[in-house]
């Protein structure tokens, strides 16, 4: 376990009471809190280096460009990208996936083609493909998931028989915590001739990512789920693919030459970064990576898995609680329901004790339909959480049971 007594003081928000209690923040799968090191890096950037990037000839503009491009190098190293120019900064995972759907997708997916996704997609790795397939008259095929929340490998194999143009799946499921066998799925999909996109939103913050090792073609992630500011994130891609793709947003920065009626494009990755970029976000993301690397991603993963294991054990001691997701191969995400208490009520009751959890469909409505529940409660962990947080969660859940009268197993629905 990490020494949270040393980590917690880095996060100013954790010192702030919530409804008169210690803030027990268990919603890091939605977004993480930010350490002082990240906040300081942003203030330092604006205090010492702010200017528009890639434009000015003056020293300050060079400093701003250096800060931005050095953040790109940091990201490239962090995920073991194919090359720094294979890292396109985006607002986050959603924009990264939309970029691929709008450019690579529009060029390569045609009427009659198939795009394959899984039954555990976040809407951000589903809706862009729905939009593309509707536009092109292509088929969207959703792979089944098993009872315990894993990708059904036999159905995955069947889906590949249609020789899909693209296969997209999450590395880690935000609703179930499942860690998918990403390298294996990639290999199978590519053997069937597909290009592979991995949604890394829930994986990148929590385990050591090696995109070259995974072997995928596109990898998308968000900074705000890994201590960095909202509006930070990247698309990591094989440079050869980016070279072939048409641009995304037209505007400044992404062009090489502009005539009255046409333009030529800047080199990658700038071809995909039209307009003034969010330099603050990139600088914050680099600082967040620095913070995480100082702890060590393997230790982060170990810490979260230990917290998740303990939470699952203790939730299972409460009569009437059902925890979703697989037994093994899971990240620090614990989805559950409790008797017939609606997760929305559970979240309200927990909030009174300062315990912040997510309740709802977690942007995975098709998955919720497959699980047969309209919503779940979800506790998720990060580097600042400790056993005290689990104690607070369990106490509050038991309190909810008392209030709603499900503490007695006799009153449980069958």
């Amino acid at each position, binding site marked *: 376990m990490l020494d949270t007594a040393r980590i917690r003081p880095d996060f100013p928000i954790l010192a702030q009471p919530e409804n008169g209690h210690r803030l027990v923040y268990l919603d890091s799968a939605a977004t993480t809190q930010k350490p002082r090191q990240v906040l300081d890096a942003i203030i330092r950037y604006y205090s010492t280096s702010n200017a528009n990037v890639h434009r000015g000839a003056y020293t300050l503009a060079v400093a701003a460009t250096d800060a931005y491009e050095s953040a790109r190098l940091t990201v490239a190293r962090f995920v073991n990208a194919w090359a720094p120019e294979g890292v396109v900064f985006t607002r986050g995972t959603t924009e990264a996936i939309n970029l691929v759907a709008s450019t690579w997708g529009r060029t390569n997916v045609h009427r009659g083609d198939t795009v394959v996704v899984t039954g555990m997609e976040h809407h951000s790795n589903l809706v862009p493909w729905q939009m593309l397939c509707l536009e092109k008259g292509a088929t969207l095929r959703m792979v089944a998931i098993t009872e315990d929340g894993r990708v059904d490998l036999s159905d995955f194999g069947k889906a590949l028989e249609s020789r899909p143009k693209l296969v997209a799946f999450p590395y880690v499921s935000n609703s179930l915590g499942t860690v998918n066998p990403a390298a294996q799925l990639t290999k199978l999909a590519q053997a069937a001739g597909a290009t592979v996109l991995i949604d890394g939103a829930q994986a990148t913050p929590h385990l050591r990512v090696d995109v070259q090792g995974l072997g995928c073609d596109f990898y998308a992630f968000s900074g705000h789920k890994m201590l960095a500011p909202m509006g930070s994130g990247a698309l990591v891609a094989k440079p050869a693919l980016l070279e072939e793709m048409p641009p995304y947003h037209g505007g400044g920065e992404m062009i090489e030459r502009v005539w009255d009626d046409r333009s030529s494009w800047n080199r990658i990755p700038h071809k995909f970064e039209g307009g003034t970029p969010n330099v603050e976000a990139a600088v914050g993301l680099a600082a967040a990576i620095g913070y995480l690397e100082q702890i060590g991603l393997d230790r982060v993963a170990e810490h979260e898995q230990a917290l998740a294991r303990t939470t699952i054990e203790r939730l299972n001691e409460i009569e009437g609680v059902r925890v979703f997701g697989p037994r093994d191969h899971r990240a620090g995400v614990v989805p559950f329901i409790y008797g017939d208490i609606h997760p929305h009520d559970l979240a*309200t009751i927990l909030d009174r004790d300062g315990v912040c959890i997510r309740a709802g469909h977690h942007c995975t409505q098709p998955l*919720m339909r497959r699980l047969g*529940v309209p*919503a779940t409660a979800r506790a998720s962990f990060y580097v600042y959480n400790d056993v005290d947080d689990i104690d607070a969660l369990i106490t509050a859940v038991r309190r909810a049971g008392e209030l709603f009268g499900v503490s007695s197993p006799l009153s449980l629905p069958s």
Partner: protein
Amino acid sequence: MTSPDLGELYQQTILDHNRNPRNFRRVESANRTAEGHNPLCGDRIQLYVQVEGDAIADIGFQMPQGAGCAISKASASLMTGAVKGKPVADAEELFRSFRDMLAGGAPAPGKLAAFAGVRAFPSRIKCANLAWHALHAALQNRAEPVSTESAGDF
């Protein structure tokens, strides 16, 4: 012990109607129906109203997936009890009164006042309003489902 403000929200009346919702059934003879949806929490209500002349002769509701949060379910239950047998105009008046209460106005009449505590929980106001907006839509004979994220005055 629960903190007092939580008791304000989950009053006994509300907990009782959540556990034993009244008029929790499909009304076969309904001539007005409406569907209400809260996409934020996944709550869905199907409302059945039988209007005869100027009055609500019968009313019932279902929550299709067998699940609505306590606030939305209890609110639907109490709403059906409050308007059953009443003239349509009175039901519309209760709808306005309930909506005004949640917006900070005077308590709605009778047991409906139990929902005044919801005001202190802004994230739950839409849950309490859902059934009432479905009723309003049904009485107006509106065909499209009501969503808490599209109706302007939720």
